[in-house]
């Protein structure tokens, strides 16, 4: 545990909003407001918080999809610059999105979809691309027959697997998972989370795992960060957070989580 894989230092992401007479004034939505943390190689950092608190913005800022307003993000101890090093950085850090229906280009077959990053970045020699695609599919538990099909022919869970396979194509070290299971059925959620875990074991991946379901985060994360209104209000191991929450918001969050056991009706009894 020497240099962290990812270091986020005082990161701010503000969205300018034009207001006032003639839209001449600019005010800002402080979506991410002075956030700092580190993720070490092979670890999973869970990120929870209420809707709109800036989780996705933070994830997208890290992968360079949103411009950094202020602060610094280091990868492997080196500052990242997406303007100049997009190509090499894309091989280090990837993202899996929440909505399995909108994250795959509906006009491409799964084969093309997975081959594209391989060809663009020359990951494998041309003649091995098909093999590599098959391997990727197998890695996420899909069969080769998926290649010729289009995304709409798959169920949500399967699409999410394809999304993961695509993220893995460039053999990244860090994957940002932006609520990758929220849109899925309970039974499918479990499949996908197991897949994440299995891949981490096999490939030594590092995750920033965003979720708003506490159960999922707890299950998958080594450490958990709780975000509230653009700031990280509490961070610690899953056990620390769940057993001994410090911040008011964390306590509220835990208190609101419905426990799947009818004998412990916490919400209704709490009042």
């Amino acid at each position, binding site marked *: 545990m020497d240099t962290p894989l990812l270091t986020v230092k005082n990161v701010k992401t503000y969205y300018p909003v034009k207001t006032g007479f003639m839209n001449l004034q600019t005010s800002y939505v402080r979506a991410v407001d002075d956030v700092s943390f580190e993720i070490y190689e092979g670890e999973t950092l869970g990120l929870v918080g209420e809707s709109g608190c800036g989780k996705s913005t933070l994830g*997208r800022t890290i*992968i*360079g*999809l949103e411009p950094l307003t202020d602060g610094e993000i280091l990868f492997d101890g080196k500052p990242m610059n997406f303007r100049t090093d*997009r*190509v090499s*950085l*894309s*091989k280090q*850090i*990837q*993202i899996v*999105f*929440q*909505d399995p*229906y*909108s*994250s*795959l*280009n*509906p*006009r491409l077959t799964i084969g093309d979809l997975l081959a*594209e*990053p391989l060809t*663009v*970045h020359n990951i494998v020699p041309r003649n091995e691309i098909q093999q590599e695609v098959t391997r990727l599919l*197998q890695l996420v*538990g*899909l*069969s080769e*027959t*998926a290649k010729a099909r*289009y995304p*709409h*022919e*798959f*169920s949500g*869970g*399967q699409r999410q697997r394809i*999304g993961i396979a*695509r*993220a893995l*194509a*460039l053999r990244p070290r860090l994957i940002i998972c932006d609520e990758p299971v929220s849109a899925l059925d309970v039974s499918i959620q479990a499949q996908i989370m197991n897949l994440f875990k299995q891949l981490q074991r096999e490939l030594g991946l590092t995750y920033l795992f965003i979720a708003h379901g506490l159960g999922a985060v707890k299950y998958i994360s080594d450490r958990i960060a709780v975000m509230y209104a653009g700031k990280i209000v509490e961070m610690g191991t899953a056990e620390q957070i769940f057993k001994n929450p410090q911040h008011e918001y964390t306590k509220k969050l835990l208190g609101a989580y419905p426990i799947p056991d009818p004998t412990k009706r916490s919400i209704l009894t709490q009042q």
Partner: protein
Amino acid sequence: MSLFKRYFNKKKYDAEHTVTWSEDMPSKGLFLKRFKRHKLAVIGFFYLAIILLCAIFAPLLAPYNPNEITDAFGEGPSMAHWLGTDDIGRDILSRVLYAARVSLSVGVGAVAIAAAIGAVLGLIAGYFGGIIDGIIMRITDVFMSFPYIMFILVVASIVGPGLTNIIIILGVLGWPGIARLVRGNVLAIKQSDYVKAGIALGYSTPRILFKHILPNTIAPILIYATSGVAGAILDEAALSFLGLGVQPPDASWGNMLSSAQSITILTDQPWLWIPPGIFILLTVLSINYIGDALRDALDPRNVK
């Protein structure tokens, strides 16, 4: 409960399963199926196919050279001239067949040009946003601010009327609508996760624009284009009415129809206007029906 867990543990995770079960989803042929539901569109499609063949094989099918002046001046249908002859003795049937070439190429050509310009500008405006978007949108404002016909009139008088010029003019003037449409779509698609994923995967901007965004706006462009084809055929007809259409002796349905502007012809020589009139009507009608069916068949909300 540990027992149940054992059951599941024993089962090795079966990946094949997942795919097999959804295999029966009827996705192939769905487009055709949806399209076929619009019976009138199917009829329109066959009609258009026939017209297209007629246009292509006009030299083989036409009994006369369309510009040949025969001795029969303004005569009604007969065995020699199935649809009669016009005021200067040309065979109407032959002219209508050749006119199909002109009218269809005006329709298709103009729309192709408009779609090409509109799609590229719309893509650029929508994707890059900001000042570029502002400038392009102001340009579309400028273009849309010209009264359509007036612009055509002036440009036609510069480059001179004629088939190619009509196509170019209608094409060059038709793009703002498509540009706006594409831009709107791009704005939405740009936000979609698969474009974000493309960026994260380090794809180049042209690749994202043309491989990921453009194909996903094809459906609306296609739908818009069908009504554009119909519109261009009608516009050419209107231009012929104003004397700025395709140049004689070439025939277009529009100039054949507009030469029937006299009550005498209307009453006494219906063979001069009924054939081109019917062809315009049916063609435009067919194209519109097809456009509507396409709209339905390509509706992304139907494709899950």
